C-alpha cells in the first residue's frame, strides 16, 4: 500500500515538475510590440568630415621634418561630430550629436537607434550635419509614408550614395 502510494506521489511530482518546465518554456506570452505600433530604426556608420581644411605646409615646416615625412599637405585627424535630427510629423523623434570615436577623435560613429511609433500616415524629416564648417544640416531628406502594424522601417545613411535612404 505504502509502495503504491509512493509511486503515485512520484508520478505526481514528476508531472508537476514537467508542467512547470513546459509552462515557463512558452508562457506567459510576451507582447514585444503593441498591435498599433511599428518600429523605425536609424542605423548607419559614418565618419564626419575633418574638423578643418587641409593646408599646405610652409617651406620652414617641411624643412623641420625628416626627409621621408615631408608631405606637402597637412590634414587634421580629428573628425567633426555628427548631428542627427529625426522629426516625425514635425515633432522631434530623435535629436542627438555623436562625437567621433577614437583617442584622437578620428574614427567614425556607428548608430543604431530604435523607435516604436504609432501606425498610420506620417511625415518623416531626416537631417544630418557632419561638418563643423557647415552652417546648417548638409543632408536633408523627407518622406510621407504609411506605417502598418509590426512594420520595420529602416533609415540608412550613406554619404557616397546621396545621404539618407529609407527602406
Amino acid at each position: 500500500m505504502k509502495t503504491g502510494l509512493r509511486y503515485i506521489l512520484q508520478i505526481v511530482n514528476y508531472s508537476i515538475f514537467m508542467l512547470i518546465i513546459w509552462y515557463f518554456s512558452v508562457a506567459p506570452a510576451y507582447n514585444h510590440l503593441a498591435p498599433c505600433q511599428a518600429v523605425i530604426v536609424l542605423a548607419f556608420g559614418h565618419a564626419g568630415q575633418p574638423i578643418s581644411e587641409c593646408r599646405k605646409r610652409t617651406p620652414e615646416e617641411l624643412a623641420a621634418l625628416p626627409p621621408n615625412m615631408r608631405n606637402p599637405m597637412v590634414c587634421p585627424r580629428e573628425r567633426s561630430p555628427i548631428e542627427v535630427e529625426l522629426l516625425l510629423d514635425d515633432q522631434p523623434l530623435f535629436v542627438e550629436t555623436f562625437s567621433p570615436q577614437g583617442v584622437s577623435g578620428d574614427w567614425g560613429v556607428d548608430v543604431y537607434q530604435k523607435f516604436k511609433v504609432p501606425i498610420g500616415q506620417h511625415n518623416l524629416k531626416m537631417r544630418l550635419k557632419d561638418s563643423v564648417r557647415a552652417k546648417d544640416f548638409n543632408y536633408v531628406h523627407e518622406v510621407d509614408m504609411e506605417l502598418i502594424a509590426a512594420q520595420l522601417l529602416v533609415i540608412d545613411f550613406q554619404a557616397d550614395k546621396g545621404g539618407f535612404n529609407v527602406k
Partner: protein
Amino acid sequence: MKNFFHKPIKYTYLYIDAWFNFAFGTKNNPLYHLGSLAFFMLWIVLISGLYIFIIFDTSITGAFQSVEYMTNEQWYLGGVMRSLHRYASDATLVVVLLHIIREFSLDRYRGFRWFSWFTGTPNLWLIVLLGISGYWLVWDQLAQYVAIGSSQLLDALPIFSGAMSRNFLVGNLSDRFFTLMAFVHLLGLPVMLVFGLWIHVKRLTKVEVFVPKTLAIGSFLALLILSLVKPAISHAQADLTIIPTLLNLDWYYLNVYPLLDYFTAGETWILTIGISTLLMLMPWLPIKRTPPAVVVDLNNCNGCSQCFDDCPFDAISMQARTDGARWKMEPVVDPNLCAACGICVGSCPYSNPSRRSEVKLATGIDLPEQPIHQIRTATKTALTELSSSKVKILIFGCSHGVNLTEINAPDVAIITLPCTGMLPPAFIDYTLQRGADGVLISGCRSQDCYYRFGNHWLEQRIKGDRTPILAKRVNREKFDFVGYAETDEAQLLQNIATIRQRITEGQG
C-alpha cells in the same frame, strides 16, 4: 539578522525535503542529487543535440526549414529529439536553480564552501548563454528577437567596433554569421562549460557524476512524455522586414530580453552583472568562520591513508614519509581546503578510546578545537553524571541536525560533534562497556550529511564495510543510528522514548 531571514527559508526547504523523502525514499530523493541530475540533463541535451546537428542546416535559408522538417516531417524522431533538447535544457536550468536554493537554504555556501559557490555562478552564465545561442539557431521570429536583443546588448559593451545590430537589417545578414553561432553553440560554450564544471567540483572528492538509475529512468520518461504531449515548435520564420510582436518566450533562458523594453542595454548589463556579482559574493555576506584545520601527529600515524580516502573535500593528500618511521606514507593537510568536519578523526585507527585509557588520548589526525581526547573525557563525564539514573542513554549528535541542546531529560546525556562521521565506532563499544544502557547517534538526514559523507561513512563502519569497523561483539540492539534535520525534533524525542522503553523492558 541573517537567521531572521534564513530560518523560514531553511524550514520551508526542510519540509519540502521531507515530502520528497517520503515520495522517493532518501536514496532517490531528487533534492539530494541535483548536481548529478543537472549532469544527466546535460547528457540528454548533448545526445539529442548531436542528432539535431545531423539534420540542421547552418545557413539563413536552410536553418528554419531544417528545423521545421525535423519537427513536422520527422516528428517521431527528429521532433522528439528537438523537444528533448529543449525541455532537458530547461530542466537543467531549473535543477541548477534548485541546487542554488538548496545550498542557500541549508547554509552550505559560506566558509570552506565559498569556492564551489563562487565558481558556480560563471557556469550559470554559460548554461544561459548556451540556451540563448540555441534559440538563435532556429532562425524563427523568436530567434530574430533574441538576435537583435543580443546585438543591442553587445553593442553597449566597449568591446566591439561597429554596431552589431546593423547585421540584422534586411540584406546585411550572411551565412557566415550562422556558422559563427553554430560554432559558439556546438563547441565554444560546451567546452567552456565542461571546464567550468570541472573547476566547480575541484574541491570535492567522489563527485557524483551519474544520477541514481531510478531517478534517471523517471526523469527521462517524464521528459519523453512531455516531448510527445507538448512537442517543441517554432514561431514563424524570421522576417527582417517586420518586428516580431507576440512571442512565446522561454522565460528560463530569455528573461533578460524584455528588460530591454524598459531599460537601456547599459542599464540591463548593470542589472544582470550586479545580480551575478551579488550572487558570487554571497559566501562573504556575512563571512562564516571555519574552525582551525585538522593537525597530523606522525607519532600516532601509520600512513594507512584511511583519512585520505574519507575526506570529502580533498583536503588530505598522501606523501612519502618524512619522519624516518617505518611506514611508507604520511597524510598532509591543506588547511585552506579543510572543513574541520572531523571525519578523518573518525577514520583514524588510533582514535580508539580504549587505547591508553589513563593518559591523554592522542590520534594520528585531530581537530584542534575539539580533539578526540576531549570527546573521550566528555563521554566519561556524561556517564558519571548519569550513574545515579535508572536508565542511561548517551546521544552522540552532529551540530547540523536536530538542535540537541533543547532536549532536556535526566536520563539522557548529549555529546555534540561537528559531524557524526567524526565518531570512531569504537566509542559505541566504549560507552556501552562503561555503563550506558543505550547509545543514540543522531546525524543529518540520511544521504544529506552537511559534510557530504559523514553519516554514510559511519553507517558503513558500523556495518563493517569500511574501516575502522565496529567490533562484532557489540550488541546491535543497544544503539541506534538516526538521521534528522532541525525540523525533526519530535521524531528524535520519539526515538529516545522508544529506546527508554526498550531498556526499561529489558531491565524488568
